């Protein structure tokens, strides 16, 4: 009873299968979105050229792609740590904001005449990362604590906590940290606290290096360390984790702290690397887009950097497209969302295998001899 497409009981989960379905989904999304260009009398080829040429084939554009990718990647990594541990955290927007605020605060303290005063960058950076990490970690950790001790629902609590963080930043930049002037924003950080630019002639900053290092660390944690093993067991089956002597509550707490810390560092890269000051609306939704990047990367830490680069690059390309071909950048968002939807939907394909010799496999008499 051989057929061309045959259903599998479990999805094919080899890297090749995942790559194949993901690319197919992406192509399908681009094909579907191509129709949207038609109403603008634009050729889809030209539009896609504009979309991908700028971010990936020009130095300046590539620099911007790196800038966008860094916080996305860090938040995606946070998502991986928390979700693989069974902690469905959605509060990265908040972690990002408190992390940015903490890093910015440390940066302002190192200004001429401020509490700390100028210190060498080599001392400043660890201090700022620590502050951002602790702030983000504590922010998510509170939700972890509520879940572990009181059994609250982390999805709702973490979503709501985003608003609290955003309002705190609003308060800070319109009150205590406000720079003289009309806009609710802080003073410019001292130059000595900026993340160094890494590609001459572009805005690309060292944030991407931090993200790459973090991807390595998360991969090692989950794959190579006993703590990561315990996280994953907890994520799959809390009852088996308890049986194995793993303190589920404490692991959740730890996972939420680790994850939130990564979100906080994402805020640091944005504040110290690209804005160089604190302002209202600094997050602009990366806390959610980062979660999408993690999903697209299949919760695999090593796939996060390329995925974030692709996703960040597309938003850079969207702006270019709007400038050059006056095609609204919202089409790119439609494309991105379609890509996510289709990548998730195409998962179904991994449940099928293609039977190349389906014509030969006629029933009964010609059943192949099996020996093993």
């Amino acid at each position, binding site marked *: *009873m051989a057929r061309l497409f045959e259903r599998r009981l479990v999805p094919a989960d080899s890297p090749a299968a995942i790559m194949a379905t993901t690319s197919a989904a992406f192509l399908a999304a681009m094909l579907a979105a191509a129709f949207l260009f038609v109403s603008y009398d634009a050729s889809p080829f030209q539009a896609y050229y504009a979309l991908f040429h700028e971010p990936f084939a020009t130095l300046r554009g590539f620099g911007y792609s790196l800038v966008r990718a860094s916080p996305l990647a860090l938040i995606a990594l946070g998502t991986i740590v928390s979700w693989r541990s069974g902690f469905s955290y959605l509060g990265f927007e908040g972690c990002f904001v408190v992390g940015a605020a903490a890093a910015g605060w440390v940066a302002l303290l190192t200004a001429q005449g401020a509490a700390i005063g100028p210190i060498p960058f080599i001392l400043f950076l660890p201090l700022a990362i620590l502050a951002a990490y602790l702030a983000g970690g504590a922010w998510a950790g509170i939700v972890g604590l509520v879940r572990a001790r009181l059994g609250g629902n982390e999805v709702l609590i973490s979503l709501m906590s985003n608003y609290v963080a955003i309002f705190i930043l609003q308060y800070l930049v319109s009150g205590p940290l406000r720079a003289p002037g009309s806009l609710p924003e802080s003073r410019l950080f001292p130059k000595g606290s900026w993340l160094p630019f890494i590609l001459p002639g572009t805005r690309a900053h060292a944030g991407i290096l931090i993200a790459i290092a973090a991807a390595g660390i998360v991969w090692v944690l989950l794959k190579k360390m006993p703590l990561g*093993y315990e996280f994953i067991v907890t994520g*799959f089956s809390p009852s088996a984790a308890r049986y*194995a002597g793993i303190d589920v509550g404490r692991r959740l707490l730890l996972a939420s702290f680790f994850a939130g810390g990564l979100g906080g560092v994402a805020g640091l890269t944005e504040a110290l690397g690209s804005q160089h000051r604190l302002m209202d609306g600094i997050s602009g939704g990366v806390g959610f887009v980062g979660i999408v990047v993690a999903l697209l990367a299949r919760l695999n830490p090593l796939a996060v950097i390329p995925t974030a680069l692709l996703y960040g690059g597309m938003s850079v390309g969207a702006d270019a497209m709007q400038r050059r071909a006056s095609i609204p950048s919202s089409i790119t968002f439609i494309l991105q969302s379609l890509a996510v939807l289709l990548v998730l939907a195409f998962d179904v394909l991994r449940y099928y295998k293609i039977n190349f010799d389906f014509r030969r496999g006629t029933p009964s008499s010609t059943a*192949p001899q099996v020996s093993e």
Partner: protein
Amino acid sequence: MKDFLEMRNIVKRFPGVVANNRVNLTIRAGEIHALLGENGAGKSTLMQILYGFHSMDSGEIRMDGKQIRLDSPKDAIALGIGMVHQEFMLVRPFTVVENTVLGMREGRGPLLDLEQASRKLQELSNRHGLALDPAARVGSLPIGVQQRVEILKLLYRDASLLILDEPTAVLTPQEKDQLFAILRKLKQDGRSVVIVTHKLKEIMECADRVTVMRDGQVVATREVRETSEHELTRLMVGRDVNLRAIKPERKPGAAVLQVKDLRVEDESGREKVCGLSLEVHAGEILGVAGVDGNGQSELAEALLHLRRIEGGQVIVNGADVTSRSVAEHRAGGISYVPADRRRVGSVPEMSVADNAILGQQRKYVRGLFRDLDEARKSAEKLTARFGIRGSGIDQGAGKLSGGNLQKLILGREILRGSAVLVVEQPTRGLDVGAVESVWQELIRARQEGKAILLISAELDELLNLADRIAVMFEGRIMGIVDAVAASVEVIGLMMAGIRPAGAANTGATMKEAPSGETV
């Protein structure tokens, strides 16, 4: 009797194994057909093909002489084929009716007519003598009743072929008798039943024909009247299995595990273990008998501190460990083989190698990192010594057959080398060969001087393995008897909560010598 259904030359491969290799099976109308075979022989796979759950690689299926196509369980149901899986697939928070109509369209329009379904269900359950309340929540029903729900669900869809995959593994003896009575009635209706089981006695008791599988192939089909347990075992395992454990004489040593006046509650705050005391000595197997749900699981969980202890003491080797955490117990003296192997004892999504170190993840480390080589080596050792059959240690543990998964968990816990071993239902769902090897391993652990608490619903198992048998009823120990002198009747009475004369003073506390009470 005419052939009703025929499977011909069925081939099914999984990565690394041929689960079914040119299998032929015929089922007659109005017969109970037993399917027998070792763990991993391919019984569940074959039945799942018949239920449209797996696709086959080649072969054909005929019903009443006509070839049929089964692409999904929907097709199977439409043709009157129904299945109760090895692991039940009921939705626990739903009621009985809701579960029954799940995936079906009843009545007109988009709305479910639960009223009508409920009436039909009631009528069905009366006709077949399956007492059941359609409005009860499935999660709150005992396993035996949940199974009745599964069967009713099939009858509701008017199945003419019912497939039951190891239906008796979780039943009490009474529930089992009831099940067989139901099956006989279904047979009289002209329906056919395929029952997968490892228990030869049950086959002799209720089946008409039996097909024996081995390594994915059918070895033989026999009329039950014309065969014997002995022959079936030979066909299945390829050798004689003497399911009588030979326990070497052994003087029990000092008391290793002492439980004093233990009190434990369940989730809803009902007391499940009420002031229970017992002692297990080094080199001794203390059996705990009892109908499922009389506090045995709660007792085991409390010993590991997986469940809060409300009162009393647990003492291991003279040290009070009552308030130790699970991790401390795992590192220290107690190993535990839980009854629920898929949700508690293992993580099915993870590999065999990863499961082999579950509970010892902090032991297999080198510096900061996991010692993956060492972990893999011990997994290899485990699979070799306990004969775990699958396609290697990188396979997902969830893909192991039930019996092999059980061996993996048991082996892991035995090899840890702790002084106390708490074992719950160790041979549930295992084939005779596997039962034999599990028994031997338990006896070997006893010889090594471990103190073993063996909780089992199988009286045979307890009589064979245990030195003493404690009978639990409603959270208390009704009495403790010496296994050699024990009679099944007396234990049965105590399991029902009746304390026979002569065992009266054994009561809740057991301070005297390890020889216990003889009845």
